[in-house]
């Protein structure tokens, strides 16, 4: 790490270059680009590889419409938790309590709606508020009390698990009112003419694909306006086509079954929203800053305690949401719900490129990490692999992913 950059400066690509730079052929440019962005693309490529392998091994069952729909439903709550966990880890902390908190909120929802017949929209709001309260208490102790997050949330893990059992008196409580059931199990309503496909899903897919294209082209044009280096034209359109292709494929697959699950819409909104917050908001920047170098962030006037507090408050709300989804999916609150969810969420974040020491990671990374675990789970279930071996393989996957990251970093010498 030092002066090598200085030497490279004159060789930097000409500004505004829309075509592959002269002298190198297209393939070299593409590989060069991938090599530069190994970190970002490594896990995506690994995910695709896993998908292809299992598709092959299961004789095509993995990507059947029904199974894809199931994949989304089964993994949604881990993905919701992984988003929040990613923020916590980027800030340089950890949260072990989310599995128990998930169960606790499920129990709270059951007590409200089943035992006390509270209207479900009211119960939903109360549950999210309860999550915020739980998160803010932990956040307060960590940020202002100065107790390490590992300890506070380890205590929270025990505490919320205990409270869950107290609330449920050790029993499973259900079923939930119809509205709540929909969150974890429901699909978008079927409307319009019979096209053999789910109409709203198709419409959403088209809108999504169009907005992705519009965003990408606009961003590229602005980059050129500012005379910045942009991706070579061929690569840009290739990647864009791949993205649009993936959206169309997912849309058609889901639309040919029951349509898009409601929880997928929730998840989509979260990914876009949190992705935007982490990339573009002052709050997001401050999270990266305190995780990357706390003393420097403090000396830059970042209110580190406040940021930490809100990161944990947010984790509480997302854990509550995940709790509602889990309970709704099982259609009952169980004292054993959410077991080991915190570990899955943490593993997702690290597989998705987060750093133990904080400051590094992306929301989309957490999703990719979660999907790697999810596809492994689902694929091995289809193959009839026992849970014993599933755990072994998931453990190895985590080790391999982070090991690759460490090796990669050492190689690039940073």
């Amino acid at each position: 790490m030092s002066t090598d950059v200085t030497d490279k400066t004159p060789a930097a690509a000409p500004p505004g270059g829309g075509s592959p730079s002269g002298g190198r052929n297209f393939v070299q440019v593409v590989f060069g680009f991938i090599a530069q962005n190994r970190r970002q693309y490594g896990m995506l490529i690994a995910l695709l590889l896993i998908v292809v392998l299992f598709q092959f091994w299961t004789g095509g069952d993995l990507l059947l419409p029904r199974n894809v729909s199931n994949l989304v439903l089964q993994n949604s709550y881990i993905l919701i938790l992984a988003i929040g966990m990613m923020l916590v880890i980027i800030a340089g902390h950890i949260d072990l309590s989310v599995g128990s908190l998930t169960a606790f909120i499920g129990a709270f929802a059951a007590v409200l709606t089943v035992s006390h017949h509270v209207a479900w929209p009211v119960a939903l709001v109360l549950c999210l508020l309860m999550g915020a309260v739980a998160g803010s208490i932990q956040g307060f102790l960590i940020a202002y009390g100065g107790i390490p997050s590992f300890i506070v949330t380890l205590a929270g893990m025990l505490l919320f698990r205990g409270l869950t059992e107290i609330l449920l008196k050790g029993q499973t409580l259900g079923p939930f009112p119809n509205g709540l059931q929909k969150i974890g199990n429901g699909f978008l309503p079927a409307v319009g003419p019979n096209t053999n496909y789910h109409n709203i899903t198709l419409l959403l897919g088209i809108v999504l694909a169009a907005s992705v294209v519009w965003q990408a082209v606009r961003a590229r044009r602005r980059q050129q306006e500012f005379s910045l280096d942009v991706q070579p034209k061929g690569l840009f359109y290739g990647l864009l086509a791949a993205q649009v292709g993936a959206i169309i494929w997912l849309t058609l697959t889901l639309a040919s079954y029951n349509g898009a699950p409601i929880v997928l819409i929730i998840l989509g909104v979260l990914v876009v929203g949190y992705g935007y917050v982490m990339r573009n908001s002052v709050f997001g920047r401050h999270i990266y800053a305190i995780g990357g170098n706390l003393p420097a962030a403090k000396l830059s006037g970042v209110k580190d305690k406040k940021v930490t507090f809100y990161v944990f408050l947010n984790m509480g709300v997302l854990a509550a949401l995940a709790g509602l989804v889990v309970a709704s999916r099982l259609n009952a609150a169980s004292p054993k719900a959410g077991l080991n969810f915190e570990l899955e969420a943490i593993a997702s974040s690290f597989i998705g490129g987060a750093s133990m020491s904080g400051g590094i990671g992306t929301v989309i990374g957490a999703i990719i990490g979660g999907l790697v675990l999810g596809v492994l789970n689902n694929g091995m279930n289809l193959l009839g692999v026992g849970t014993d071996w599933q755990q072994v393989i998931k453990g190895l996957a985590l080790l391999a992913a982070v090991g690759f990251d460490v090796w990669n970093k050492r190689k690039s010498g940073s």
Partner: protein
Amino acid sequence: MAGPVLEMRSIVKTFPGVKALSDVTLTVRQGEVHAICGENGAGKSTLMKVLSGVHPHGTYEGEILFEGEVCEFKDIRASEDHGIVIIHQELALVPFLSIAENIFLGNEHASGGFIDWRETLKHASELLRRVGLSDHPETRVADIGVGKQQLVEIAKALSKKVKLLILDEPTAALNDEDSGKLLDLILELKNQGITSIIISHKLNEIRRVADSVTILRDGRTIETLDVKAAETTEDRIISGMVGRDLDHRFPDRTAYEGERDAAPALEIRNWTVHHPIDQARKVVDDVSINVRRGEIVGIAGLMGAGRTELAMSVFGRTYGRHAGGTVLKDGKEIRTKTVSEAVGHGIAYVTEDRKHYGLNLIDTVNRNISLSALAKVAKRGVVDEHEERQVAEGFRKSMNIKAPTVFEPVGKLSGGNQQKVVLSKWIFAGPDVLILDEPTRGIDVGAKYEIYTVIDRLAAEGKAVVFISSELPELLGMCDRIYTMAAGRLTGEVERAEATQEVLMRQMTKDKEVTR
């Protein structure tokens, strides 16, 4: 006169891009206390690291002879086997282990892997008696003061059958009483036949304990003087330390022409700060300084003078305990208890330690630049990435930051370019007062000149600049006025016209007895 116990001949040590030692020769006689002095960065600590094997044989050029034998130490262990023990400025004790455990750490009295506590305690008590420490050997090191910890380090050295003891600024963190005790102990050890090398800035200490003194400057041996000789005065030592030709180049500065009695942009009155852990110790003691718009005011001082501590405690109380005093901005008293308050009042502090306190090395150039004033490129909490990028691009050009794009991680830039990023970050915040702490430390001459030009431009734009530096030529070349500090106190204020290296160095090495 006894013969030499140690000879270091023509030592050359190069770090990537920097020649830390170029031709250093050191001869230490058997049984003497030999002082080494020189400015910060003269190469004292590097030389001792070469001697003790921290920089192993093969990474430097030259020859080391100890007790007449050529030595090629491959690590610290090898030099310790020969009886050479170094005690670093930062003590290497484990706070939660006992005194006895620390003394024998890595060198335990044990049989079959199990510690022989009887022998350990007995031996530890003997060693503690030798260094004049009456604490029980089972006391935790965390529970004794820094002065006593220093003595434990020496006891640890004695347990290794030390023949040559090296102390790197042993009294820098000690109060007067503890310093006195330590110096007495060094003399006592001398009577027992142990040779010592002591690195120190404090000339009165050198006069008190040392037999001879070797002066280093810019990685070279300048001279070795006999301290007891009549002609070796403090002035003689000072002129050896600073006598460098002023070949550094500075931008032509038009000196401050504002009114002498114009209201200062920033004024600090009677500022006192206590050490964060050793709270009885005053790190900054009743210091008052001021700086006017368009003026560059230097603060000179040697290590431990309290300059950084002064700046950081004013800037949002980011250092120390019980900071007290008054801060005035344009004649009005202001609160600077948090960094946001200080920044809000138009004060910026550019840290001396850019890697730990200045930059998020894993993040990009543009994000580092915008961090201290994100609100300027954000609307309702949302950062306008394009505007942010333009701002960063602007600084990349105007500050000549050599990075392929503003999206380069800062950790990959060279030191000089990193420093330009830190400066950009604070210039972007738009302060009226900039406190620059060692802004040219560890960067090459070319980049230094660029930084000087920027500082000059800032002053010309009417900003008030406080320039903290250990390099006297730099202060002399850039500043309109220079304050000097020593041991937490202000020891002088010199106008540009009257300032010379000798005048400043004399004030920087003043200790309390002298000022009284």
